């Protein structure tokens, strides 16, 4: 046992070694291990981000959005069926006349006719203040 204030060279070496190992242990615990834990946290953060991305972007935008859009488009497509037979006949005739004009290359007359008809209908509706397919107020 070495007592007293006289430290031999060996004991100084010993203390230095202890200090070195304490420093290494501090470095290991605080720096290296923190880095490892940091990498772990970064990985977890990236993983959470990937999970979010998978749910909302790849699945949401890529898969569910087209499906929802397709269903939404379905409603306007069905709205063309008002149940009014005259409307059906009008659609048929318009298609026929439009294709004929297209094939015969007289589209100008076609668009002019459509415009004239549209203007005429709107004018008529405004002048007589009647809107079709709406229940008249007489029949309460």
């Amino acid at each position, binding site marked *: 046992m070495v007592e007293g204030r006289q430290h031999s060279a060996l004991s100084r070496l010993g203390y230095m070694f202890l200090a070195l190992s304490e420093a290494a242990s501090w470095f290991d615990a605080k720096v290296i291990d923190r880095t490892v834990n940091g990498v772990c946290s970064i990985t977890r953060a990236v993983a959470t981000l990937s999970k979010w991305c998978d749910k909302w972007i790849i699945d949401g935008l890529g898969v569910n959005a087209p499906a929802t859009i397709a*269903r939404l488009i379905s409603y306007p497509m069905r709205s063309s069926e008002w149940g009014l037979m005259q409307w059906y006949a009008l659609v*048929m005739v318009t298609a026929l006349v439009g294709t004929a004009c297209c094939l015969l290359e007289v589209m100008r007359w076609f668009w002019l006719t459509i415009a004239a008809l549209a203007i005429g209908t709107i004018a008529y509706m405004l002048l007589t203040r009647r809107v079709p397919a709406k229940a008249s107020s007489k029949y309460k």
Partner: protein
Amino acid sequence: MLPIVELAIFALGILLIDLMIPREWKWINAVGAFVGVLFAALCVWQIQSTLPPRGLTGFYNSLLVDRFAIYFWYLFLAGAAVAILNSGHYLDVEDEHHGEYYVLILLSVAGMMCMAAGIDVVLIFIGLELMAISTYVLVGFLRRDRRSNEAALKYMLLGAFSSGILAYGLSLFYGLAGGTNLGQIARAMSGQNPHNPVVVIALLTTMTGLLFKIAAIPFHQWAPDAYEGAPTSVTGFISVSVKAASWAMLLRILLYGLWPLRSVYTPVMVVVAIATMTGANFAALTQSNTKRLLAYSSIAHVGYMLLAFVAMGTSQVGSPGFLDGFKGILIYLLVYTFMNLGAFAVITSLRQRNVIGDELDDMAGLYRRAPVEAALMLLFLISLAGIPPAAGFLGKYYIFLSLIESGHYGLASLGVIYSVFGLYYYLRIANAMLMRAPMETARLPVSLGMRCAVGVTALATIVIGVYPEPFIRGVNWSLGIAQAPHVAAVVK
């Protein structure tokens, strides 16, 4: 004896018998009609076995019974037979079991046969009107149901409207050709400039009438209402046989009479095909009424067949694209007849005393109430979606094959993507049937006739899907319009 005549005789016979029999024996009418259909099939078989290669002509060269016509005659008779099997119990429940129903079915089949075998524009038109008027009345057969009356009225008015347009177009062709025979028209058209305004207008008006009958967009608006309002057994019948007859008429006129004008009508058909597939598939996605849903699905199927027609129109005669397109349409109509009739048969069986049975919710839990019907309905839905090994795949196969062979890769991709849409709404029905809890757990009573109908169609769907060889040979045999040398190329 011509099956047309034979069917008319049976129809008149049923009319007479119907006057004499009491109410409980009304099923005798059904038996009589079924026997009539069987006899007609026998007549067709007799004609087929002695058929000369150039076909039989009659009525001053206005009727041509060739292989094409015989194929379609068999198809009509099969559709009528299954429809008759389907109708008995349904009409009893609806309390409208009259003999006129069967008479009208037989007469409409007679009209369809004229359409398929007609080589003269007038005879085709007569057949068309006979079929159409019979079906108008059939659609409105439920006299006390407002939807049925409304459906019949709309169908009739729009049908008359389009028949008028068709007659106008055909009359223009008469004027251009100097005769009403399709051969004469074909010869006249091959000398004509396709961009002659009169020709264009004649062609477009004719096509309007033709496309109306097959329910292509934008001439389809009558179909959802008519299908929904009609008695379900009638809906099944008109969705298959009327469609087949209309296609026969379309093919006869456009492939024989107006073939020289294909450079004009093919682009129009492309637009119509794309519009039809798009509109029908999108509109069907959110339907809640099964009959309406199947109506839109029928329109979608017409869209696919129009694609095959486009492939034919843009290919050289005798090339694989042409032949496979032709085969595609014929086979598609065959499998479509059975699978659609089967699906409608199952929906018909849902009609009970207090339940109309055509909403999606009515099908909920069918696996409990009628397990066999539910399983077979699944088979029909799978077949409609075009999934092998059910028969529907065969139709889609030929259609996409013909598109690839004629180089329309974009159209093929589009068609293929739309068929995935189709699966969605068929699966909605399957979901309701198999995966939702039933609203009532009582067994669904299914009559014998209906069971036969479902059984026969299911058997046909499976057999054609798993072993299609004899049916493909039959279609190959019937490929071609005699008297039209360019269409008479037959594959062995």
